[in-house]
């Protein structure tokens, strides 16, 4: 797949004018990282093509996991949108391949129709973080796990089968709990609603899964 094809298939770059996309693609390179901290090269935004990880925030001298990222997610938006250093980091949980886009080229296209599309894209990211923060403040461990599984499940009639986006340590990071707490929460899920074997999840009944959650009508996922 060429860099132009890659940009054409991923939001929000798919909304670029064809000529702009080709221009950016000409200055886009691919690079791989092993599991561990990812140091993006200066002047580059990363688009994850495969692999998964977490974005991190520095707190008390340690990187703390903020959100899961996987194929299709962009990292390093702060470089494009702000003159200040980007405080968010990236930690790959698996080997990762990134398309590295030129920050200067993206910045030059903010003041145009693409900027409006990018505002919508960033708004969706903000809402996701807001949902996560609300869950951390207001929901218990089992409710957070049930909501998360419901939210990442593919659409369609039950039952559906899908893989967890990362290992259990990654899932624990995303949900803001220790691995031990996650294990206890997994054990408290209704086996008639969901089964989990390794990373493989079979969601049998969304309504039953969310029955433990007083804030969601049965069957309603984000």
């Amino acid at each position, binding site marked *: 797949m060429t860099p132009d094809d890659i940009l054409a298939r991923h939001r929000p770059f798919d909304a670029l004018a064809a000529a702009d996309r080709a221009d950016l693609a000409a200055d886009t390179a691919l690079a791989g990282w092993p599991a561990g901290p990812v140091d993006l090269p200066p002047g580059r935004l990363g688009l994850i093509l495969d692999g998964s990880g977490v974005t991190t925030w520095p707190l008390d001298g340690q990187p*703390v996991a903020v959100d899961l990222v996987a194929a299709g997610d962009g990292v390093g938006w702060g470089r494009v949108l702000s003159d200040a250093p980007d405080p968010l980091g990236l930690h790959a949980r698996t080997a990762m391949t990134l398309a590295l886009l030129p920050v200067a080229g993206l910045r030059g296209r903010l*003041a*145009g129709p693409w900027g*409006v599309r990018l505002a919508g894209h960033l708004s969706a990211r903000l809402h996701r973080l807001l949902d996560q*923060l609300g869950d951390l403040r207001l929901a218990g461990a089992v409710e957070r796990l049930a909501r998360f599984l419901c939210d990442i499940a593919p659409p369609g009639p039950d039952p559906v089968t899908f893989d967890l986006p990362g290992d259990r340590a990654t899932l624990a990071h995303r949900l803001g*709990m220790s691995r031990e707490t996650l294990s206890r929460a997994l054990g408290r899920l209704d086996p008639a609603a969901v089964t989990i074997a390794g990373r493989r999840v079979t969601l049998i009944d969304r309504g039953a899964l969310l029955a433990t959650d*007083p804030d969601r009508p049965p069957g309603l996922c984000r």
Partner: protein
Amino acid sequence: MTAPTATDRARLAALPLFAALDPADRAELFAGIRIIDAQGRLFGQGDPADAFYAVLAGVVRLVRLSASGGETVIMEVGPGETFAEAAVFGRGRYPVAAEARAGTRLARVDGAATARWLSDHAEVLPALLAALWHRETQLAAEIATMKARAPDRRLAGHLLAHLERGDWAPATPWPGARNLLAARIGVTPEALSRIVRRLVAEGVLDNGGLATDATRLRAFLAPGPDEKGGPDPV
């Protein structure tokens, strides 16, 4: 709602969001802005997002509610900041409720009119996108704090931030309501009382009124052993 005064216009012109505009474009945009002297609920969680706001004076709390009665203050927005842009340009509904403290003065920017206006004034977009990014970093910091800091350290960090911003004087009683403070750090009022008792016993807070100073709070927040119950380090 009233039209902006000369003072309001000067404050609006100083906002990063509008700084890139030339005076003529600024005058055109500001003509559609309405000023609200707000107190109490501004909009509800889930309401259609028809406008975003700039705080000219006072404070607005952004509050997340749950159907079971839970409530948490996601953040407080003060003078010179804007809020709800993401709702206007995103899902079209406010994901939080907004509550203005008494004495708050706001500029209401109509969402649909601004979206139309932006199509001819794209030079504003970088500042709008920067505002959205700033909000994303604030949320990321809050999420990291919730995941990695125990409630007593979240309280100390929150108090320290107020002292460092200068909106609370050292060695004076906490000026706000305790239940709002509890909602802001994500604990129940009862849990907050227990935390305060413990911090008073440890000498971090003075007995009664939460009075303290930055030195004591920084010492308490200095990196120590891993906390219990949080996620493992990355």
